[in-house]
């Protein structure tokens, strides 16, 4: 791979100074003159019909300016439910946390006080918290049509994928392995809570939103408020993390806009931390049953997955399970059924369908390798994917190098116990690994490049930069293509009035999709400079591009990863910690190794939290969440976090901006399984349910 001048070098964020001085303006830092503060009253019951809402006392409180309920607001929140069944205020309410009313008042204390003055008469309905119980005959229907949600083609059937014939594959196997695994609902838990500030100027609406994609957010707001896109401006200059939690528009954007309209003043709506845990969304839980057929030499003949996933009260996410594509196997069937319960809604969280699916799959594959007396790493090298779905060649694939180089860095041969659980104890060490992959498709996005008469280049890109360093990445790509230093590119971002469409920082698409648009805009600008000369004085040259994805000529474009974990497990207390971690990634050319390393280390540490601690627990008797908030969620802290070593496998990728592939989401995909496999290697017993908490470790050892 040819080294480049700007791209590929560790570079500080162009907005780093604002981030360390307190100068960066996040959405919640915006204060508009005359702004009101809003609060949401939420259902205290998991399932109830609202008979009556009495607002008289709340309206009488001095300082209250507007109140919305299902009685005066029937607005649909379309990005809150793929099936269009969700309004901003629903009756019946379907989970503890479903919005019942929203209040705008002169300050946050008055708004909060007013929520306590609203009197709601609820008819309590039976509720469900368990996936299997929700599917039993006679279970209360949370939505019309029952608790089995539709598949992604909107049919009343599971989401399926099939190649070959699993029955034949299992017949051809020397040995068949079967096992069940579960994973928990856990929260994105980004530090910045949901916040929206809405202001109307006549019929034009400005929303300061904490969003991962200003363009999609605008389209969604316009759709649900039934106004045209050009009547809506969305601004998100700095964003305090999302990990999928702030894709599209959120109900807070719509509620703030409607309150602002009713009150005739700008409205700021901030959710509390507890609301962020119970009333936004987290990763969907799962119950997975795998069946795997294998020859005695370790060759896979079949994989079958049947699963239920927990959608929660509404269908906000795909609720699918992924991961099987990382194996080469002639016969594969997957069947995934999303199920409603009266619990927090599930939707996108960093590689939404992957880490939990990979946990089940890679746990079982580990067991298969041990049973065949194979090194789990050799087993994976033997069975890893060579072609996408065994059929389509990859544009580039560095998976084997991820495994080999990652293993070398980790010192796999030294750290892995051929006999699991053979350590002396009470603190036992073990090593585990797992692999994963993620799509890195190219698609449409736009960019504008402008050169003014003073020789300044301006790059307009509709990115918000949720922590991924997207605006720096876009600047680097422009600078490289222009052949100038990054400092000479002025990046304009985060405002739909000044930036063209960008795909949004979801699906790990910004670098590869908006990055291509930047390159095309720069090429056009260079052509114009060559034809017309550089602009002088008040002259300006401008180029814009909307990319058309290149034909991949029957190939598939994917990123790959292999992760290696070492754990110490105290078999007397059940305490497990990760002591060493290596993440090896093929994401093509790395545009900015500094910020990319931050993402890989962060993804792995988030994944360790998912493996060991995190779960939103429900009390089955009351249907109420038990541990919403950071203490209860036990997300990773400074003390829990091991040093994560990063290994880059920079494949020579012919497509995408300078050969860059997707990175952000793959960073968490194999992590959870690697930790689970390391725990097995340490103690010689398998915990088949996430998170792998102390009680479960002690349970399998008992």
């Amino acid at each position, binding site marked *: 791979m040819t080294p480049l001048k700007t791209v590929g070098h560790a570079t500080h964020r162009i907005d780093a100074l604002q981030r360390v001085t307190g100068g960066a303006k996040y959405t919640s830092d915006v204060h508009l003159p005359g702004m009101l503060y809003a609060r949401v009253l939420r259902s205290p019951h998991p399932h109830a019909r609202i008979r009556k809402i009495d607002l008289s006392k709340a309206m009488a409180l001095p300082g209250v300016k507007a109140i919305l309920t299902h009685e005066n607001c029937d607005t649909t929140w379309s990005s809150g439910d793929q099936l269009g069944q969700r309004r901003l205020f629903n009756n019946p309410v379907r989970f503890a946390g479903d919005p019942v009313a929203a209040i705008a008042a002169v300050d946050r204390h008055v708004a909060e006080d007013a929520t306590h003055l609203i009197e709601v008469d609820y008819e309590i309905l039976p509720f469900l918290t368990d996936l299997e119980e929700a599917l039993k005959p006679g279970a209360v229907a949370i939505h019309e049509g029952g608790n089995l949600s539709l598949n992604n083609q909107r049919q009343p059937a599971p989401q399926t994928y099939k190649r070959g014939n699993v029955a034949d594959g299992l017949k051809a196997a020397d040995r068949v392995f079967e096992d069940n695994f579960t994973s928990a609902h856990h929260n994105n838990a980004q*530090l910045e809570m949901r916040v929206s500030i809405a202001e109307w100027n006549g019929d034009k609406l400005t929303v300061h939103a904490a969003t991962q994609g200003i363009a999609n957010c605008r389209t969604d707001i316009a759709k649900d408020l039934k106004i045209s896109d050009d009547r809506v401006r969305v601004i998100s200059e700095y964003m305090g993390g999302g990990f999928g939690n702030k894709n599209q528009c959120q109900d807070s954007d719509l509620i703030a806009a409607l309150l602002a309209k009713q009150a005739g003043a700008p409205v700021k709506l901030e959710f509390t931390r507890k609301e962020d845990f119970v009333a936004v969304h987290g990763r969907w839980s799962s119950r997975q049953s795998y069946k795997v057929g294998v020859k005695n030499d370790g060759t896979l003949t079949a994989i079958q997955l049947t699963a239920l996933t927990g959608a929660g009260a509404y269908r906000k996410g795909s609720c699918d399970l992924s991961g099987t594509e990382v194996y080469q196997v002639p016969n594969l069937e997957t069947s995934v059924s999303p199920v409603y319960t009266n619990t927090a809604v599930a939707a996108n969280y960093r590689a939404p369908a992957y880490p939990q699916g990979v946990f089940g799959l890679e746990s079982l594959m580990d067991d298969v390798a041990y049973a065949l007396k194979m090194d789990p790493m050799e087993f994976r090298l033997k069975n890893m994917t060579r072609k996408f779905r065994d059929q389509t060649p990859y544009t580039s694939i560095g998976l084997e190098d991820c495994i080999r180089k990652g293993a070398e860095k980790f010192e796999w041969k030294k750290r892995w116990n051929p006999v699991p659980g053979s350590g002396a104890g009470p603190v036992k060490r073990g090593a585990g690994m797992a692999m994963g992959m993620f799509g890195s498709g190219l698609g449409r996005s736009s960019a504008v490049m402008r050169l003014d008469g003073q020789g300044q280049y301006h790059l307009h890109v509709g990115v918000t930069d949720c922590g991924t360093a997207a605006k720096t990445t876009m600047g680097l790509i422009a600078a490289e293509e222009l052949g100038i230093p990054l400092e000479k590119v002025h990046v304009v971002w985060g405002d739909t009035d000044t930036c063209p469409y960008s795909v949004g920082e979801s699906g790990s698409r910004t670098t590869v999709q908006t990055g291509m648009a930047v390159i095309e805009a720069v090429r056009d600008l260079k052509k114009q400079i060559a034809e017309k000369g550089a602009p002088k004085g008040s002259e300006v040259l401008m180029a814009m591009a909307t990319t058309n994805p290149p034909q991949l000529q029957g190939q598939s474009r994917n990123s790959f990863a292999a992760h290696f974990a070492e754990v110490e497990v105290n078999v007397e207390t059940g305490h497990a910690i990760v002591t060493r971690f290596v993440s090896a990634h093929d994401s093509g050319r790395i545009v900015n190794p500094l910020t990319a390393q*931050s993402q890989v280390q962060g993804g792995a540490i988030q994944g360790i939290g998912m493996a060991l601690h995190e779960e939103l627990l429900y009390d089955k008797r009351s249907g109420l969440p038990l541990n919403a908030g950071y203490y209860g969620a036990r997300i990773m802290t*400074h003390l829990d976090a091991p040093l994560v070593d990063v290994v880059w496998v920079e494949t020579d990728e012919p497509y995408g901006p300078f050969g860059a592939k997707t990175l952000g989401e793959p960073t968490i995909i194999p992590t959870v399984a690697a930790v689970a496999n390391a725990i097995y290697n340490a103690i010689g017993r398998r915990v088949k349910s996430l998170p792998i908490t102390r009680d479960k470790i002690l349970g399998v050892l008992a």
Partner: protein
Amino acid sequence: MKKISRRRFVEGTSVGIVAVAAIPEIKAQEKPASLPGVPRTTIRINVNGVDRRVEVEDRWTLVELLRDHLDLTGTKIGCDRGECGACTVLVDGKPLYSCSQLAVWMDGRSIETVEGLAKNGKLHPLQEAFIYFDGPQCGYCTSGQLMSAVALLKQKPQPTRDEIRSGMTGNLCRCSNYNHYVEAVHTVAHGEKA
């Protein structure tokens, strides 16, 4: 591939991180609320070296005073319930969660926020190191991480990495950029030995 190294940071051969005029100016924007019947108290506080006399509602938290009424929005609210540390400020030199302190309790005390770290247009060495080692991803926890690190180095000028992790464990980072934060603090603390 140009990489980030401790040595390069210490030798100062990195991309120039210099002080800048862009540090937010501290504005006095006390906005008196006007609701009747809410108890109010006048307090004297020193914020980032400036003495102030402010009338506060007794129910305001310190972070609310800083953010909503003194326009010091560099201090963030991540949970408003003493769990995450995003709102960490120094009160009389000691780190405190400003969401868990009432503003009226601050009478006669000195408060230092992230906006007060840079002096005379020059960044604090920890701010420089946070930039150099890419501490902030989304950046929402960064002010709190900085204030905790400042307090830690005052109390213990040369902590080990484990001591840094212990000292800052009350500051959550969901981007989980802990490795880079620890490296930044360690390098500032042990700079001359790197």
